[in-house]
């Protein structure tokens, strides 16, 4: 009805704006602006027009004001400390009591909401409207930060073969200090000028922080918006309210006590504002924030029960350990207590995944976090006051800040986000209490590195904004799932030593097994109509091939070996009846029998290792895991019809990631390049070298040399065999083979310790609800 008369004008009150246009305040009072944007500083500084005139005098503004809206209201939580005007926001209620207040933010966990409610004096209970919070077009990646000072890790932001600056995805790099921002910007400019000499590095890579002048800031923002500049290295001043829609990558360089999960999520919120593009959020984490949690989690999971009760058990030992180390620093005891830290945290809990089973644990952990965050804020404020006093009294020594373990200082929610073994999106959504925690299906891409690893996607092939989940800190060392994705150049292991078997004993059993399997397959193929009912069994695999295959058992360690053996024995893999799945089955048949028949005792060294391992985990559990993974091999789907694809190029990645859980020697890369596979060097110094020195290292299905141990040895073996349950035996065999595989894998940096840890990862049980 009065649309004709409507004049909507908006104004932003800023210090500069008010200075240039002195009438602005008066125009506002007269009600000329319909939407007024203002910062807390301009409204609430001591001599502001707003406090002195606008809210006191009778004017159009006061009469017609319908809403006070406070955007990004979570800033009250953090900024109250260094922007005191934020705490005065509550005064607005006193001046304008009848106007409703609308507080908005993307990150409002309960403790923040409680503080906001208190500061703004909102009516209680306050209504809360929650929208779905999942960022469906954001992938999350955690990468290792080698050290705080070395920024070489960021070189990968610029592609090595760069032709055009637009190949660099628009990137924001968040750092915690101006100096770091300048350092990184300089480094990246150098890299760019080397990789692409005709570019303009100073324009393409910008630094942005609060103390640069306004003109330059604006220039940077414009350049980023129109795409001329591709990487902006910035401090927190960029994290709120930058509205560039096509930023593809947000990188958090380093994690310290000033960062919390809310802030991090705000920063990630800058990525992929445009729903059409896929964004990536990367955190570079120093390893010392992850390892302790992993260590304690491993220790705890050994018992099969996660320690969930904060009240009953705290990590007293851990704290003591840290205290001791701190005392070693000497002088720090003077300033003890000035920087607060989290004490007695049950670290292993921070690896908790958010699943439908762990609801209760997660709720408790979350409650713990909210409580801690509140306590910690209080502590920090006290500490700040304390430090101020301290500085006054002892100004000379005050420069020394006590050294703390960074893990004790870091925000618990952030620690959880970094350490969770489950989906990181779920973790954030659960912490921020959004409703759509389990709506994983909405994710457009690989979601987060943990999800990609757990879903057994081929990590190397995935990539968002120039980075792949294969770069994840979770991927390289601790996850057995990585094996299929290791770059072939490094990951090619030397062939493991041949199995120790008494061939003449095993051979008949193997042949029987294989024949049973063949009969089974034969009948299956008939029911499926792939062969005629009258066909002889020999058509599946001829007897001679079965016999020779069984003879080559000592060289068969992986599915690939079976494949190669069949090829060597003259089986026509191209047109034959066997599929990849069947070859995997053959391997399982052979391997099971060989493992069962393998002599137990080989040398004192291995046996101690075996018994160690045996006590370290529950054999029953491991066996079930192994069997599970084996059965998964059977049921794994084959995507394309393998009959059509030539065998040489056939992709067996659908089998191998699963199989690699139990058989670390299986490599798709090895499969692909098996024809060109180099012969393993003959005298590799191995820990098991002494026991294998008598047997040949050739593995590829050659005719095995029949060597039988002496009668006395055999007797020993038989005795040992009786003492040990078959399940445990199988485990030890597994372990042994893994151990032997650690030699080549050491190239990749896997130590035996890591390997043991990864073993334990496999048997990690799902969280039980007590």
């Amino acid at each position: 009805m009065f649309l004709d008369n409507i004049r909507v004008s908006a104004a932003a009150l800023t210090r500069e704006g008010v200075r240039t246009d002195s009438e602005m305040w008066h125009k506002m009072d007269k009600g000329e602006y319909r939407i007024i944007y203002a910062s807390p500083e301009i409204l609430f500084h001591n001599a502001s027009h707003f406090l002195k005139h606008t809210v006191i005098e009778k004017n159009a503004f006061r009469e017609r004001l319908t809403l006070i809206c406070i955007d990004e209201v979570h800033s009250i939580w953090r900024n109250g400390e260094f922007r005191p005007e934020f705490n005065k926001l509550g005064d607005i209620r006193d001046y304008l009591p009848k106007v409703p207040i609308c507080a908005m933010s993307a990150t409002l966990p309960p403790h923040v909401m409680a503080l906001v409610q208190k500061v703004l004096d909102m009516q209680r209970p306050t209504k809360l409207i929650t929208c779905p919070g999942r960022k469906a077009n954001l992938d999350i990646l955690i990468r290792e930060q080698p050290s705080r000072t070395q920024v070489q890790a960021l070189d990968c932001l610029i592609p090595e073969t760069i032709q055009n600056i637009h190949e660099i995805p628009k990137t924001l790099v968040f750092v915690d200090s101006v100096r770091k921002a300048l350092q990184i910007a300089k480094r990246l400019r150098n890299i760019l000028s080397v990789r692409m000499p005709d570019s303009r590095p100073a324009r393409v890579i910008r630094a942005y922080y609060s103390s640069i002048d306004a003109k330059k800031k604006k220039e940077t923002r414009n350049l980023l918006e129109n795409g001329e500049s591709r990487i902006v290295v910035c401090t927190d001043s960029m994290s709120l309210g930058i509205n560039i829609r096509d930023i593809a990558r947000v990188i958090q360089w380093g994690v310290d006590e000033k960062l919390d999960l809310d802030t991090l999520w705000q920063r990630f919120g800058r990525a992929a504002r445009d729903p059409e593009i896929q964004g990536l959020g990367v955190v570079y984490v120093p390893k010392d924030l992850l390892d302790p949690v992993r260590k304690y989690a491993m220790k705890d999971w050994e018992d099969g029960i996660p320690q969930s009760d904060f009240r009953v058990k705290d990590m007293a030992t851990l704290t003591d350990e840290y205290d001791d180390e701190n005392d070693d620093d000497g002088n720090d005891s003077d300033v003890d207590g000035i920087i607060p830290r989290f004490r007695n945290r049950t670290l292993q809990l921070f690896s908790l995944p958010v699943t439908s089973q762990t609801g209760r644990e997660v709720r408790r952990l979350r409650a713990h976090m909210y409580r801690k965050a509140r306590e910690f804020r209080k502590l920090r404020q006290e500490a700040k006051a304390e430090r101020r006093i301290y500085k006054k009294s002892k100004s000379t020594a005050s420069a020394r800040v006590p050294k703390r373990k960074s893990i004790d200082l870091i925000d618990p929610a952030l620690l959880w986000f970094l350490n969770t073994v489950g989906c990181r999106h779920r973790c954030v959504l659960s912490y921020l209490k959004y409703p759509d925690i389990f709506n994983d299906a909405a994710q457009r891409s690989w979601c987060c590195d943990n999800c990609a690893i757990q879903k057994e996607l081929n990590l190397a092939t995935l990539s968002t904004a120039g980075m792949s989940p294969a770069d994840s800190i979770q991927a390289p060392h601790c996850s057995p799932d990585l094996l299929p994705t290791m770059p072939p150049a490094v990951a090619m292991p030397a062939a493991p030593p041949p199995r120790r078997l008494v061939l003449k004993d095993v051979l008949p059993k193997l042949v029987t097994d294989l024949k049973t399997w063949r009969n089974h397959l034969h009948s299956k193929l008939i029911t499926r109509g792939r062969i005629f009912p009258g066909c002889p069994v020999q058509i599946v695999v001829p007897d001679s091939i079965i016999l020779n295959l069984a003879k080559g058992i000592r060289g068969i360690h992986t599915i690939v070996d079976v494949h190669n053996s069949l090829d060597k024995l003259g089986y026509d893999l191209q047109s034959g009846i066997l599929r990849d799945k069947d070859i995997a089955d053959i391997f399982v048949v052979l391997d099971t029998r060989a493992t069962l028949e393998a002599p137990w005792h080989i040398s004192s060294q291995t046996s101690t290792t075996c018994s160690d391992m045996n006590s370290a985990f529950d054999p029953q559990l491991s066996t079930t895991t192994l069997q599970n993974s084996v059965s998964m091999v059977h049921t794994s789907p084959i995507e394309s019809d393998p009959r059509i694809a030539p065998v040489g190029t056939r992709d067996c990645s659908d089998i191998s990631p699963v199989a690699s859980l139990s058989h670390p020697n299986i490599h798709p890369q090895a499969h692909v390049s098996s024809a060109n596979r180099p012969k393993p060097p003959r005298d590799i110094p191995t820990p098991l070298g002494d026991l294998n020195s008598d047997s040949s290292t050739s593995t590829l299905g050659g005719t095995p040399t029949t060597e039988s141990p002496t009668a006395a040895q055999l007797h020993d073996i038989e005795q040992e065999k009786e003492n040990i349950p078959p399940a445990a035996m199988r485990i030890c065999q597994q372990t042994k083979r893994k151990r032997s595989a650690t030699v080549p894998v050491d190239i990749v940096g896997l130590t035996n310790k890591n390997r043991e840890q990864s073993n334990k990862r496999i048997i990690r049980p799902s969280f039980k609800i007590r």
Partner: protein
Amino acid sequence: MPSLAAFEDLKWDDGLLEVEGTVKNILWEAEQIFGKRHRDWQASAIQALVQKEDLFIKAGTGSGKSLVFQSMIARRPSGIVLVIVPLKSLMDDQVHLRTNGKVMGTGDVSRQYPSLSGGTYT
């Protein structure tokens, strides 16, 4: 054009009918001004605000938070909304978005938005 006083005397809490009527008005008007349809949650937010209730809105950027407070200018004839934002750059973006006429869909109305005098911010 109804006088301001008439609106002052209205008691919004009297009955839901009245409120619903107001909300509908606001939604309709805001749609005319900004050229965007309201989603359910935005409508319920506006309803709460019309009832003079304080409100938390937990929503990510880009989910349409702005439309809620923008719509509230239609609460009364020439209603005013005060938005407190912690950073200047955000204000800048918002004001420019507004004055570009990009958001203000319907032609006639958008022409009436003055380009801002106070619009040079950093």
